[in-house]
């Protein structure tokens, strides 16, 4: 999924679903800055502490609902979503910079979902491609 983003050292990436912070750390090694959102508050807090402890200074962790993205920091050069949504959140598509890619699993909770690659092309056209069947945890939950 990280490779699919095709991001590099100059890029700013948004991650939805921080979890333990592992994916954010991987991205932090590759890109300039990582913005990551986690809906479960204790997870967000522990990931923030863990990343700080490990010395990742280019990661911003926020507790919130990833459905709305991170408007203040948009647009992004890549968005990676690590939980399955029932549809592709429109605001995330809007927060992609022309030429940027988003990787997101979509589909009903606990069923077979599809990993989608979404690309906002230079002319603003959004093209998507379904890559493979996957099964991720649901996008939104309280804890």
């Amino acid at each position, binding site marked *: 999924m990280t490779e699919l983003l095709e991001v590099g050292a100059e890029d700013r990436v948004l991650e939805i679903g921080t979890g333990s912070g592992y994916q954010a750390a991987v991205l932090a090694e590759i890109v300039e800055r990582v913005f990551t959102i986690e809906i479960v508050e204790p997870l967000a807090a522990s990931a923030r502490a863990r990343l700080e402890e490990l010395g990742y200074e280019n990661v911003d962790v926020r507790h919130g609902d990833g*459905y709305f993205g991170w408007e203040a920091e948009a647009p992004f050069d890549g968005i990676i979503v690590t939980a399955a949504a*029932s549809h592709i959140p*429109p605001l995330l598509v*809007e927060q992609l910079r022309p030429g940027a890619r988003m990787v997101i699993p979509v589909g009903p909770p*606990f*069923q*077979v979902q599809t990993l989608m690659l979404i690309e906002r092309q230079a002319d603003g056209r959004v093209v*998507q491609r379904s890559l493979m069947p996957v099964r991720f945890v649901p996008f939104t939950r309280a804890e």
Partner: protein
Amino acid sequence: MRRLHAAILLIGALGISYEIALMRVLSIAQWHHFAYMIISVAMLGFAVSGTVIALLRRRIEGRERLLLAAGALALSSSLTICFTLSQMVPFETFRLTSEPAQLRHLLILYLILAVPFFLVSWCVALGFLIEPRRVGRLYFFNMIGSGLGAAAVVALLFWVRPASVPLVLTAPAALAFSLAAGGLGRRWQLGLLIPAALMLAAGPTTGGQQIRASEYKGLAHALRLPDARVVARSQSPLSELTAIASSAIRETPGQLSGYPMRELGELPEQIGLYFDGGSVSALSRFDGALEPFAFLDYVTGALPYRLTDRPETLVVGAGGGIEVLSALYHGARHVTAVEVDPGVHALVREELREHSGGLYEREDVTLVLAEGRGYVEGRPDGSLDLIQFALLDSFSAASAGVHALAESYLYTTEAIQLYLRKLSPDGVLSITRWLKTPPRDAIKLFGTMVEAAERAGIAEPGLHLAFVRSWNTGTIVLSRAPLTEGQMGAVRDFASERGLDVSYLPGIQRVDANRFTVLDEPIYYEAATALLSDRREQFYRDYAFHVRPASDDRPHFFRFFRWRSAGRFIEGARHGWFNFVEWGYVALVATVAQAAIMGFLLVLLPLILFARGSGDGLGAAAVYFAALGFAYMFLEIAFIQRFMLFLAYPVYAVAVVLTAFLVFSGLGAYAADRRLAAIVGERPEALKLVRIAVLLIAAIGLAYLVVIPVVFRAAAGWPDPGRIALSLLLLSPLAFFMGIPFPAGLQLVSDRRSRLVPWAWGLNGAASVLGAALATLLAVHLGFRAVVILAFACYAAAAAALGSMHEWTDA
């Protein structure tokens, strides 16, 4: 009526009520295709009791009444105890393939739930031993009880949650016990008093009345959303409906493609309506302003509004009203919203009225409580500009293929022809489906529309069709008139503005059909062009899934499974991907297989061991009672499926057909018993009676195949009570004669080989439950007509076998 008869009547009613209630419970706890499991469970109970009584015949002799009373007592407490225990088993369908312990849980569940069915069958079989000379009369009471029980439990489910039904049934069960115990001597009555008091008290106190629902169902997930709370519930025989409010419920009728949320705003606040804890329909907050519903112009389902101007619109499957709001947003002149589930009506009009803003009370909206096709049938021809089919099933249900066996008369070629007739000259029919991977639903739908248009006299259907898709939905529009240049331009503009792909439009090129949601091959375009060409038959033959159109004879639109492709499905499953699998179909095949294995192990094998050296003709008896079980269920299931079209509500069809079959068969049994009672011992007479009955069943059944479609069409517009009365009238002669062969044969066995009576009863019960599952499987592959004809073949085999049984000499 004697006490024994009253007890048997009540026990018959309890058996069927419990079975129907458990099917509802399993639909809520797991997924509805899993409700087929109850068929195997009932079979297990029936088969085992018949075999046990047959094997313990000598020990039972002389104690029949006591054991019947004890069985009734055990039944009255087992209803709740077994239900409560079953809800403690941590069974989870979802983990069946990944967690070996689940198979053990499934087996435990089977054994627990089979106990009440064992006891029902135990009591009835003992009843036959108590009255060996009048088995027809006892059978009559059992059948009448079952018929009334079917009707009563459906009525009960309007008021009582399925989980509470076992507790409610404890009262008639206790009455059955007291009736059965009434025939015992005082000593036994006193002896039974203490255990009776204890067991009857144990039932209600253990009745948890809670269903252990799968943690992977939609409702369980919704309850874990931020600030989630239950805001309303409703209950009907169709579904248990739970309304959940949460800021994180964001259901949309498909992908919002290109929706500028920053500019046009977020989705309105929603309440999710969860049906049986699974599929969801969103109820949006509505205050009369339509602007917040602009997002509905960014889904494929908005396509027909680009082809119509202020249409008189019919929305089928209105649910929480999202399609009604879409019609109003797009300027519909008037919207008729048809919804089949009375629970939705009740919630939207009462408890959630404030939230829904009186949507269904607007002057330009009419809400109708009806099944979609039945309602359309009653509309005047040419009276609608747009018939819009919402996404009737949820995304998750569609993904899992749980509807694979559900009959749907909404998407048959005959139905599409009907919709075309009801459209105005410029009117359009629009159907939206969730898209599956690999593609199948939308392809089948497209083929159905093409064939229906041809049958309706449209020479070139390709000029009337448009098909637009996003990544997860496809909308196909069939216009009564050829699409104009202006309309085709509107389709192209709509698609390119929204980032949707046009999979078919007259004159479209391959390169234009795969621009936004890019597939490896433009499969929908290729399928559509093949279906419109002379390559259609070849396409149906070669495609990996069953995509031939559904018809009224085979209305299984959601069945895509093909045995030819089974290897691919298994290969996919081995790699952990179940997306190719049609779970409903798999569950049914598993049920048939389990029932067949159990039937062999629990009925046939004991028979072979038990009957060794006991004389000739047992094979004939096995054929007779098994064939009758199959034949009866083949006809019953075929007619339930057939009457669904006429009675509109599946639940009415089940209740009416079951009640008619069982009650009138009971009357047939009673009439035959009176006749047989007069002629017991005169072999040719009993054989003649069965032969006449079988001939009449075949004659009436064949006449039905011709007459029923005509009668259904003529009476389609009748009110519900009229159609129900007509159905009962239509079914009564057939059911009456179907009630004759079983007790006639059982009487013969009772007279000549009385110890085989429980075994014959168990065998017939086992064949009946297996027959129910098998009938569904056969209907899927061969159609209803074929199932009816197979039933006649079974009756003919039974008549021949009876001829050989008549050669039995007295034992």
